[in-house]
């Protein structure tokens, strides 16, 4: 069995044991958010940056009280940004909000129907953020050439989609994901499109360093139980990858010996 104490991965110089990264959107309430995230074992947790609701209940719990930054690595995202400028602005506000914390999830979207990334704007934003000393984990398509380019300009992790955000369709292009992993020297994290535990295992079996998901857990009928399933699926997939799977054959290969038969 893989020892989780030794099988760590590194993002921007920090080591992590959990290869499951989770979002905090779409939960029914803060109790469910907290329970699911606890159960997932995730160490890196994404948040969105939005206007403070100025008329809010004063007793309403703040998200960062539920997922305290001293316990989790908070990963602010740029969800909802459709151009480089608004993504950069969002990251700068997040850094101020989080007292200088400079790890961000960059996503610059192109289209509301697919939520596919706008790659040219993503590249522009990534360069600007890296010049401004951010550590950028970047959401991208499953294009191996673009994934490598994002690594070359200095992104600390490259995060190709498995399928459209929130679709739950699973990994649509495993060969591209495998090629991205083979080419990479930074962590590759499948971000978006995972629907259930087997999808997460497949991502890990392909050699990805981790999987980032939100809807697959939050929109499950029982999110806390799905968080537990995802934790195990990620671990199982990782161990299967490290173990090295048997080759596929077109025909049967008997498991019991031919020799020694008495019939």
């Amino acid at each position, binding site marked *: 069995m893989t020892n989780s104490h030794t099988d760590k991965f590194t993002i921007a110089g920090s080591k992590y044991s959990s290869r499951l990264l989770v*979002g905090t959107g779409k939960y029914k309430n803060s109790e469910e958010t907290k329970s699911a995230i606890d159960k997932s074992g995730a160490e890196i947790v994404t948040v969105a940056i939005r206007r*403070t609701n100025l008329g809010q209940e*004063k007793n309403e719990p703040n998200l960062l009280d539920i997922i305290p930054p001293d316990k989790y690595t908070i990963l602010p995202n740029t969800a909802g940004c459709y151009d480089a400028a608004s993504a950069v602005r969002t990251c700068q506000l997040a850094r101020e909000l989080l007292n200088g914390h400079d790890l961000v999830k960059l996503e610059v979207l192109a289209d509301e129907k697919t939520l596919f990334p706008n790659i040219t704007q993503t590249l522009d934003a990534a360069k600007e953020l890296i010049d401004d000393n951010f550590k950028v984990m970047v959401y991208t398509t499953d294009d191996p050439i673009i994934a490598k380019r994002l690594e070359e300009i200095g992104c600390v992790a490259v995060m190709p989609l498995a399928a459209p955000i929130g679709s739950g369709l699973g990994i649509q292009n495993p060969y591209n994901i495998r090629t991205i992993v083979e080419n990479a020297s930074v962590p590759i994290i499948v971000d978006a499109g995972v629907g259930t535990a087997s999808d997460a295992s497949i991502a890990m079996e392909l050699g990805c360093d981790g999987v980032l998901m939100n809807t697959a857990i939050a929109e499950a009928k029982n999110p806390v139980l799905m968080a537990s399933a995802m934790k195990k699926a990620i671990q199982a997939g990782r161990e299967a990858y490290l173990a090295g799977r048997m080759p596929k054959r077109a025909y049967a290969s008997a498991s019991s010996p031919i020799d020694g038969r008495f019939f």
Partner: protein
Amino acid sequence: MNVLLNGSSYSIENNCSVVALIKNLELNGKYAVEINQTIIPKSEYSNQKINSGDKIEIVQAIGGG
């Protein structure tokens, strides 16, 4: 005087500082402040005066993926 606070018109005293605005709003938790698309560091809240017509954004972390 009036400012545009998180997209809505908001009335505050003349020569109000960011600290006074935050106190008025009774904000809790972590937030960041931007005036006319310039981020105001926390250390500047007491010095930073707000002018009539300023576009102020106060943001926080919320659930997202």
